């Protein structure tokens, strides 16, 4: 699905990531951990092309990222659902339209998919909030709405950046259950988090690979996880 081969990312004079090699195989479940500022978000951005590697090769769905044009990037993002750390909603649109946004921009009718949208919002526990504007939602509701939007196009890959950052433990487990359910449906999952309890909880249920970014490099996490 997505492969990074000897990838480095430099911003100005500073190396943020060095010699990263990662392969996200179809149906795999990965955690990406590391301290704040380690480069987790940067690595995720390389995977959905918000950033481009300064060296090395990123391959997305079999195509080298540096040969994908701007329209191609849009196509890639329809196959990669992203739960952003800041959720990134359009504040003037109600929740239902925000969740349907990937359908709208790809030219699909929201009306034709209305039942699926309502089912999706029910799945993330937001049935009663369809008309609410994003600023009216709690942190947990925003995270779940972001997950709903990330999966609305039924993407092959789901990338989540600190998806439980604003959630209490109960809500975090609920979101995790949703992600595990998606993985069991064959979706490839990569979650950037520093919540070790969440990782342990997941490993107890499925075979998840845990990676850690340390000193700008990627390594397999030890048995302590």
């Amino acid at each position, binding site marked *: 699905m997505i492969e990074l081969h000897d990838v480095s990312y430099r911003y100005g004079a500073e190396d943020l990531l060095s010699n990263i090699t990662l392969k996200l195989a179809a149906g795999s479940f990965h955690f990406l951990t590391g301290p704040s500022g380690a480069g987790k978000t940067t690595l995720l951005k390389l995977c959905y092309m*918000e950033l481009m590697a300064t060296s090395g090769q990123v391959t997305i769905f079999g195509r080298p990222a540096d040969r994908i044009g701007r329209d191609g990037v*849009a196509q890639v*993002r329809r196959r990669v659902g992203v739960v952003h750390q800041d959720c990134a909603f*359009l504040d*003037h649109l109600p929740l239902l339209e925000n969740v349907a946004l990937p359908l709208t*921009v790809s030219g699909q009718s929201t009306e034709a998919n209305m039942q699926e949208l309502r089912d999706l919002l029910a799945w993330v526990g937001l049935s009663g909030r369809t008309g609410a504007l994003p600023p009216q939602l709690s942190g947990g509701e925003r995270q779940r709405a972001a997950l709903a939007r990330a999966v609305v196009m039924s993407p092959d890959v789901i990338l989540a950046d600190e998806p439980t950052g604003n959630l209490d433990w109960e809500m975090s487990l609920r979101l995790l259950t949703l992600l595990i359910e998606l993985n069991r449906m064959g979706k490839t999952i990569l979650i950037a988090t520093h919540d070790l309890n969440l990782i342990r909880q997941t490993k107890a249920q499925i075979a998840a690979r845990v990676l850690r970014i340390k000193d700008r490099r990627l390594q397999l996490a030890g048995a302590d996880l």
Partner: protein
Amino acid sequence: MKLAAEILSVIQGDPRADRAVPPSGFTAQLTLFTGGAMAFLAVFALALALATARLADRWSGELAQTSTVRISAPDAQMEVQTKAALRVLTSTPGVKTARALDPAEQRALLAPWFGPELPVETLPIPQLIEVFETGAGYDAEGLRLRLKAEAPGAVLDDHTRWRRPLVAAAGRLNLMALAAMALIAATMVAMITLAANSALSANAQVIRVLRLVGARDSYIARAFVRRFTLRALGGAAVGTALAMIAVSLLPDAEVAGGFLTGLGFSGAGWLAPLVVPVLAAFIAFWSTRLAAMKALKGIT
């Protein structure tokens, strides 16, 4: 073909795409006002351009086809010299007709300065002969020599001396009007580009989100382009209508006489201003599209 499809999609619109970009009051009003004001000025510049073109044509055409022979002679010789001059003129190749103005016509010519009661017959004023040329025209120098021999008091005025600066002035006015129209168009490009850039900057976060969920550049640009094109079209339509009303209220040529009275449109010329709103929409379409595409290049 691709561009035609894009123009069609801008006209048809997509309510959901329009909703994705929040309405921006200030830039909307600015674009409407710019479209209206520029269209108003453009219609006046167009009226001036068409009027000066007509004027240049008329002056160069009409004056080129006519000449005047002025006979200044003592009363006793006036009639003899007039007849001699007419004989010379009617036998000159290139002269279609020649006729002496009667006292009533001479009085009418002098009326603006001396009033209608002027006793022309009793005053020592020259006799005028109106000469109409054929398309090929005549040899002015040869005619002058023959007139000098047959009617010594006759002076040929072929209008060349004062026709040239008039035609040149009309031509320059025409160029200035065209330049004014070009400047108006350029100003409109600048104003709409500024307004579009302002709207794009204000909506940078919206654009980022749209890109992140898989929107193509053309989809995002279309939302802005459609909005600005329709605003410019609406504003320009109002500005054009107001300008056409203002032009129609200008005095008629017959009422006031003189140069400025020909400033309005005539006949099918009234259709020309209808192009202005279309041009305004075209300018807005391209200005916004270029601004949007440039802004989008900076957003991954």
